[in-house]
């Protein structure tokens, strides 16, 4: 029974999408909504069953029965470890929540939204489960194309421009990935992760593998929106419809980082120079993203753009967890990925509630207008506290694991970036909650600075229906973090690492013992939470603070903020230039690593 689960997780949403495309026009409009929720839940059940069944050994499925003969691999396989299934399950859960949230929202375009979203879901499942590099690329592409079309759905000027930036930068990412696959095939003659891992082990110093890794990692970093590849993200996330932004921030972007973890541990781990580049360059990119995303989020008044920048910050922490190259860091990354998906998904849904109920998303324009939908304000504040590092829930466990892993690896300097990035994103969300729902933080000259385009989403759903998935996601983000889940995440990560290079060949039944260590800095959650409350209070209480202090602090921070604003100017040519800069950084660090 369990052996058909891996293809089922992909086949269900693909089949569902095809079916809806065929008969969607004939169905009354609630049926596609209900059908999509059911498909997403069925995929979630399949993923959960796989996670349970993979406890002893990974599930292996070869399409068309093309199992490898000896060391010759011709077929395409799905090899599902517990970590893969767990990540896929988080993705499916987020889709189910987003379908409930979008109930009736897309009735104008009938079932097309659901068709695209189910394709998107199928692509992400395939991406998590596959064991073949080219198959990974195909899912990556399906994911991208569905995402491009979903971003531009509203066909308004800003969403079209955001979608164009997104499509151009991510297409370059796809070409890089295909080039990387070419390099891989040139040296190893195979695309299966296991066989590829063996040929890397046979020639660990081959520069062609370094080239291949550069191209593949750059492609995944573009998808994962890491400095200096991050520019497209804010443009795309801010303009996509809210149910789609939920998936973008919660699932698509973090999957880029999960892809890097997969690639490294399944294929490139034997090459020492690639390990060095992961530990230096990618770690630095993660820390820089954590910091830059947080600072940029503080600058935003458009709530969705604010959340988009906070995603850059949190995904930076994910990348740091991966780049530490040890089970604890990776375990922290897995816990953080799940927590981030739940909390950020809930936050984008709250933004969607504001858009449909209050007809706007501008934090200053909506000041004090949230009274009638106060339960959304409570949810926004709770989510802000969780983002800001409150010592409960999955996010907190993940960041503590990453921190203790960084400390053990002699990289305690990550701590300030981690705390400051977390605090800034939490502060930005709390500030928005205080301003919109409590009417705090009056700004002089509010009208002049109002954004140009009026935004609105359909107010056709009852508030409780929109709040239901928000509450479920937030409750899960807190409740899923039982005392043992830290240990559980680390064990998943240890198995993920131990099963690298052809899980089908050596099944490892013994769970690896992972030393359970207390966090070296028990004060961190309190520090970042306090800092985020302080920053939020500072921004909200500006009118009560002494003029001299405000002038001094503005003057000190202005150059930094001006640079950040100038960089994210929305011109696609500049974004592509930064991609080239990122590729140059890779080559410099490979030269440094080998010399």
């Amino acid at each position: 029974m369990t052996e058909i689960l891996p293809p089922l997780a992909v086949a269900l949403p693909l089949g569902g999408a095809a079916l809806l495309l065929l008969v969607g026009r004939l169905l009354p409009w609630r049926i596609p909504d209900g059908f999509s929720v059911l498909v997403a839940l069925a995929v979630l059940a399949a993923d959960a069953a796989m996670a349970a069944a993979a406890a002893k050994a990974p599930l292996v499925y070869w399409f068309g029965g093309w199992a490898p003969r000896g060391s010759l691999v011709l077929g395409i396989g799905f090899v599902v470890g517990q970590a893969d299934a767990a990540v896929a399950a988080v993705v499916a859960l987020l889709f189910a929540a987003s379908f409930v949230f979008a109930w009736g929202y897309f009735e104008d375009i009938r079932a097309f939204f659901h068709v695209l979203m189910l394709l998107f879901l199928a692509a992400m499942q395939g991406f998590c489960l596959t064991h073949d590099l080219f198959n990974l690329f195909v899912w990556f592409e399906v994911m991208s194309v569905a995402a491009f079309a979903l971003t531009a759905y509203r066909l308004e000027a800003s969403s079209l421009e955001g979608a164009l930036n997104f499509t151009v930068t991510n297409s370059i990412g796809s070409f890089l990935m295909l080039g990387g696959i070419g390099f891989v095939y040139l040296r190893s003659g195979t695309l299966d992760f296991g066989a590829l891992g063996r040929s890397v082990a046979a020639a660990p110093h081959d520069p062609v593998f370094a080239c291949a890794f550069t191209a593949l990692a750059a492609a995944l970093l573009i998808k994962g929106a890491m400095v200096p590849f991050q520019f497209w993200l804010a443009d795309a996330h801010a303009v996509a419809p809210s149910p789609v932004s939920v998936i973008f921030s919660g699932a698509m972007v973090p999957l880029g980082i999960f892809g890097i973890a997969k690639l490294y541990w399944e294929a490139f781990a034997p090459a020492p120079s690639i390990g060095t580049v992961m530990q230096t360059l990618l770690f630095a990119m993660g820390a820089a993203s954590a910091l830059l995303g947080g600072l940029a989020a503080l600058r935003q008044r458009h709530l969705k753009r604010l959340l988009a920048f906070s995603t850059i910050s949190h995904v930076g922490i994910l990348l740091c967890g991966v780049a530490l190259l040890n089970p604890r860091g990776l375990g922290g990354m897995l816990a953080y990925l799940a927590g981030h998906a739940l909390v950020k998904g809930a936050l984008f849904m709250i933004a969607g509630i504001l858009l449909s109920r209050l007809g706007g998303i501008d934090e200053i324009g909506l000041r004090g207008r949230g009274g009638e939908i106060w339960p959304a304000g409570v949810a926004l504040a709770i989510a802000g506290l969780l983002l800001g590092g409150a010592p409960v829930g999955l996010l907190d466990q993940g960041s503590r694991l990453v921190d203790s892993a960084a400390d053990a690896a002699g990289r305690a300097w990550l701590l300030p970036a981690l705390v400051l990035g977390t605090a800034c994103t939490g502060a930005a969300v709390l500030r928005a909650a205080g301003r919109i729902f409590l009417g705090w933080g009056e700004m002089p000259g509010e009208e002049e600075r109002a954004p140009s385009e009026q935004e609105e989403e359909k107010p056709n759903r009852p508030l409780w229906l929109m709040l239901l998935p928000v509450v479920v996601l937030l409750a899960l983000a807190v409740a899923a973090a039982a005392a043992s889940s830290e240990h559980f995440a680390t064990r998943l990560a240890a198995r993920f690492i131990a099963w690298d290079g052809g899980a089908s060949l050596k099944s490892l039944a013994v769970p690896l013992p992972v030393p359970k260590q207390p966090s070296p800095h028990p004060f961190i959650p309190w520090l970042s939470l306090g800092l985020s409350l302080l920053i939020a209070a500072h921004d909200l209480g500006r009118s009560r603070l002494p003029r001299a202090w405000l002038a001094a602090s503005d003057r000190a921070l202005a150059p930094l903020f001006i640079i950040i604003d100038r960089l994210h100017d929305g011109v696609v040519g500049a974004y592509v230039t930064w991609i080239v800069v990122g590729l140059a950084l890779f080559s410099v660090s490979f030269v440094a690593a080998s010399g």
Partner: protein
Amino acid sequence: MSLLPWTVALWLFAIGLYGVITSRHYVHLIGCLTVVQSSTYVLLLAVGYRWGAGAPIFFDHPPGTPAVDPVVQALVLTDIVVGATVTALLLALALQVHKRRGTVDPDALRPLR
């Protein structure tokens, strides 16, 4: 194998990216993007090429006849399909932008901030 295909692939990649960066018209930019994509075709075909070998069609050849690597050709075919999808989507987006903004100059178009 000669250096020529690798040089061509690198040249196409670089010149295409240069075009994308400096372009002042989205249709031109999309054209440049397909140039970048062509570099991956050249790269992949060079990877699978064998001197003196025929096409990988074994209908009227005995098994064992030397042939170029069919795997990369399948990869290129898949990529052409994906590339056509993305190009069509991009052109449709550019058309819609032109309808709403009256320009397709990337420097004049900026998403919401």
